[in-house]
């Protein structure tokens, strides 16, 4: 049964009870209306009639008594008037539905007879008839009978009115009791249904509220929701349970992801740290390289300058070598003349020796006077020999010089060639150095760029590290947040 039906059941039941109540009240009420009509048109006028008739009877009695007391026979005539009034009063009620016409007629007859008799008896009393005693008895009996009849009529009307009122009261009471019973039954039934309805609604609602509060306050996603009803609340509960299950699954997924995220964030952070260090190292390395490149550039400039110096020197060496070769060639010519001169000297020496020998011989022959001469001649001979030997030596020396000159020429040639090579090399070096400088300059420029990029990279790494730090912190926060949820089945 849906809640709508359950809720509609209450007014429907109430309406049913109200209709029942209305029907019962209407039925009982119409009965009371009948009774009230009886009372109004029947019992009440009948009562009034009986009272009036009693009054008339009393009037008759008073008239008779007054007439007897006053011993006034004429006053008795009024009894006739009263009799007429009695008949007329009775006639007025002939249409009363609750009066028995036979009884009314009898009453009329009895009253007429009594009035007649009483009047006669009273007349006899006035006339002081001593034998009136038995008539008095009859009169009294008739009077009492009439009075009793009227009293009974009054009593009857009263009783009937009372009965009617009692019946009305009873009906009223029945109506009241029925109303009360119906209302109580209605209240009881509605109470039971309301109670069940409320329990049916509040039970699942309380369960759901408790579960929702537990999720909200304790993050308990492990809570189980048990609602048996199949109405809208039951559907809500089952949807809630499904939602909680989904949340649980989502939580598990997110928890795993968050753990991975935290690990990744930590890794990224560590990597960023490393990278930052590496970047700094790299940056300082690049600066070093830059410095080195600057030195290299300076060195290259020096080398170029030096190479230029070398080239100049080599050119000079070449020239020097050429002039050396020329000088050596001149030396060779002069050496050849020296050899010729030396031949002359040697010949002179030979001749001097020969002359000295002859002079010695002549001095020996000249005896003593000649000894001194011989000595000088000897000495001259030794000098000649020595000159010859020196010439010989000089000749050797000249030969050596000539060979040395030849060697020197060759060496000079070699040196010139070398100087030429050196100059070429120096030119080459200058060229290469020039190129090297250009290249180094480019490298240096590139290195400057690299440094700048590295600086940027360092800054970027720092940012990366900060971001990784943030990421890590957020992952930790997320983990803390997720730890507020419990997914395993908890108590209850």
């Amino acid at each position, binding site marked *: 049964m849906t809640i709508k039906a359950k809720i509609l059941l209450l007014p429907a039941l109430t309406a049913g009870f109200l209709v029942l109540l209305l029907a019962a009240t209407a039925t009982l009420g119409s009965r009371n209306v009948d009774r009230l009509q009886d009372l109004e048109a029947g019992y009440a006028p009948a009562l009034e009639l009986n009272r009036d008739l009693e009054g008339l009877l009393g009037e008759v*009695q008073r008239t008779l*008594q007054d007439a007897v007391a006053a011993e006034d026979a004429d006053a008795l005539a009024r009894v006739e008037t009263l009799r007429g009034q009695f008949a007329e009063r009775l006639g007025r009620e002939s249409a009363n539905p609750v009066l028995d016409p036979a009884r009314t007629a009898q009453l009329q007859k009895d009253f007429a007879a009594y009035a007649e008799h009483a009047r006669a008896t009273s007349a006899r009393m006035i006339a002081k008839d*001593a034998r009136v005693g038995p008539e008095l008895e009859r009169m009294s009996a008739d*009077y009492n009978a009439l009075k009793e009849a009227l009293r009974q009529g009054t009593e009857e009307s009263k009783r009937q009115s009372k009965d009617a009122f009692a019946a009305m009261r009873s009906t009223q009471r029945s109506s009241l009791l029925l109303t009360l019973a119906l209302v109580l039954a209605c209240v009881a039934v509605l109470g039971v249904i309301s109670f069940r309805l409320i329990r049916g609604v509040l039970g699942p609602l309380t369960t759901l509220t408790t579960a929702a509060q537990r999720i909200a306050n304790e993050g308990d996603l492990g809570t189980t929701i048990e609602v048996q009803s199949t109405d809208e609340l039951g559907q809500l509960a089952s949807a809630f349970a499904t939602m909680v299950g989904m949340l649980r699954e989502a939580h598990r997924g997110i928890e795993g992801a968050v753990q991975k995220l935290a690990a990744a964030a930590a890794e990224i952070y560590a990597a960023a740290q490393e990278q930052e260090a590496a970047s700094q190292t790299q940056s300082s390395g690049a600066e070093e390289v830059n410095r080195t490149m600057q030195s290299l550039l300076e060195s290259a400039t020096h080398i170029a300058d030096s190479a230029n110096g070398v080239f100049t020197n080599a050119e000079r060496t070449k020239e020097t070598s050429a002039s050396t070769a020329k000088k050596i060639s001149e030396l060779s010519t002069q050496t050849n003349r020296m050899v010729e001169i030396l031949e002359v000297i040697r010949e002179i020496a030979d001749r001097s020796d020969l002359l000295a020998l002859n002079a010695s011989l002549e001095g020996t022959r000249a005896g003593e006077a000649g000894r001194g001469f011989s000595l000088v001649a000897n000495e001259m001979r030794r000098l000649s020999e020595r000159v010859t030997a020196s010439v010989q030596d000089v000749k050797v020396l000249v030969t050596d010089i000539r060979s040395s000159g030849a060697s020197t020429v060759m060496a000079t040639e070699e040196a010139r060639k070398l100087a030429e090579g050196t100059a070429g090399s120096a030119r080459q070096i200058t060229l290469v150095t020039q190129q090297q400088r250009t290249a180094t300059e480019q490298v240096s420029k590139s290195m400057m760029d690299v440094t700048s990029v590295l600086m940027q990279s360092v800054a970027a790494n720092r940012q990366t590290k900060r971001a990784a730090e943030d990421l890590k912190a957020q992952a930790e926060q997320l983990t803390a947040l997720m730890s507020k949820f419990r997914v395993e089945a908890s108590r209850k």
Partner: protein
Amino acid sequence: MRTQLTLALSLVVALAAAPSLGAEPAPAFKLIVNAKNPVASLSRDKAASYFLKKSTTWSDGAVVHPIDQGDESAARKAFSQEVVKKSVAAVKAFWQQKIFSGRDLPPPEKAGDEEVVAAVKSNERAIGYVSAQANVDGVKVIAITE
């Protein structure tokens, strides 16, 4: 109660005022009952109440049958005056009221002492009064006490 007390007091006063109780002349009537009636005397009040039918039973529970005399008789006048303490007219008015209200009837009236004596003789529960000179053979005369 108050009325009775007042009545008794006035009686006492009346008695005290009387010149001499013993010197009073003998009453003009005699109260009579049936010979079989054990009653020897009645108080004046009791006798009056019997004749006004205010008391209706003897001390043994039997119904009292009072018998009156015609309103012209001297005995009745004397009885009314001395025992009932009312005029005959007042008594008659009393009875008319009783008659026409249908409540009671006056005691039967007998014409003369003889008829009363005869009636009392024939009725064990009867009580009547006759003149002082009447012949009361066969009935019992009872005393009236104050």
